[in-house]
C-alpha cells in the first residue's frame, strides 16, 4: 500500500512514517511525505496513494483547513484519515469513520486499520463533516508568497 502523509511539520511526518513502517510493515510499500503550506512538496506519485493521512488544519495557519480540502479531492476514490487537534469545539465528535482528534483514547493503529478496511469516504461524508464544523467548508485563503507581492 502506498501512503501519503501530509502534515504541517517535518518531524511529525518522519514520526508517522516510522510508525507506519513499524506497525504496518507487511502492508506498506511506499510512504510519501508532504508539508501543508508547501505545495512544492507534492509529487506526481502521490496521486496513486491508496491512503492519505493528513492534518485537517495547517498548524501554522490554524483556521486554514488545507489538509481537509486536499483529501476531499480524493473523495470516493482514496482512503483517508484526517487528524484534528484537540482545540476543536466540544460539539465536534472526537472521532469518526475517517477522522480522529489527537491526542485521543483511540489507538492510532486501530483507527488506521479501520480506515484501511473501510471503503474510501464519499463526498457526502466529507460534506457531513463540513456541517459539523463549518470552517472546513470555507473558501481557500489564497495565501500568496509575498516575495515581491506579485506573481
Amino acid at each position: 500500500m502506498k501512503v501519503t502523509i501530509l502534515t504541517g511539520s517535518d518531524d511529525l511526518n518522519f514520526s508517522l512514517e516510522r510508525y507506519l513502517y513499524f506497525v504496518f510493515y507487511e502492508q506498506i510499500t511506499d510512504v510519501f511525505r508532504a508539508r501543508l503550506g508547501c505545495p512544492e512538496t507534492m509529487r506526481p506519485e502521490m496521486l496513486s496513494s491508496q491512503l492519505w493521512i493528513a492534518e485537517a488544519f495547517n498548524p501554522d495557519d490554524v483556521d486554514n483547513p488545507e489538509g481537509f480540502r486536499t483529501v476531499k479531492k480524493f473523495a470516493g476514490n482514496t482512503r483517508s484519515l484526517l487528524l484534528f487537534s484537540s482545540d476543536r469545539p466540544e460539539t465536534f465528535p472526537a472521532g469518526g469513520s475517517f477522522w480522529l482528534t489527537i491526542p485521543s483514547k483511540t489507538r492510532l493503529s486501530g483507527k488506521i486499520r479501520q480506515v484501511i478496511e473501510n471503503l474510501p469516504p464519499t463526498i457526502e461524508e466529507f460534506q457531513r463533516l463540513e456541517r459539523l464544523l463549518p470552517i472546513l467548508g470555507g473558501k481557500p485563503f489564497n495565501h500568496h508568497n509575498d516575495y515581491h507581492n506579485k506573481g
Partner: protein
Amino acid sequence: MSKEPKILIVDDIEEYLKSLKAILENKFSVITATSLEDARNKVSNDIEIILLDIRLDENDDANKDGLLLLEWIKNKYPEIPVVMMSGYKEFDLAVDSLNLGASYFLRKPINSSELNVIIKTIMEKSVLFRENVELKEKLKKFKT
C-alpha cells in the same frame, strides 16, 4: 532558423518573465505570454516545455487562470509537458495542478538550479518518448 528547443513561459509579471528568460535563453528559444489568451495563441506542437503561472492577474488575489489554461493545453496538446509555478501556498493547488496533468509544481520564487534539473529530466523523458514512438513505427513497418 533556430534549432534550439522552444519553451513557452506564461506569467503576467513582465519582470518575472525577464528573469526566467535570462535563466533559460542560453539553451532554449524562449517565447513568453502574459495572459490566458496570449498563451492560447502561442501554444503550438513544436514547444518542448511550458512553464505556467497559476495566477495570471496580479490584481486578483483569487485568480487561477493558469489552471484553466493547463486544462486547455492538456486537452489540445496532451504531449507537451507543463510545469506549474505559483506563489500560492495552498497545498491543494498542487494536487489540482497534477490532477490536471502538470508534470511538476514549483513554488515561486523559483530556484534556478531546481528548475534546470526539472527541465533536464523532462527533456530526457521527451527524447526517450520520441525514440519509443520511432521504434514502434519501425517495428510496425518491419512486421508489414
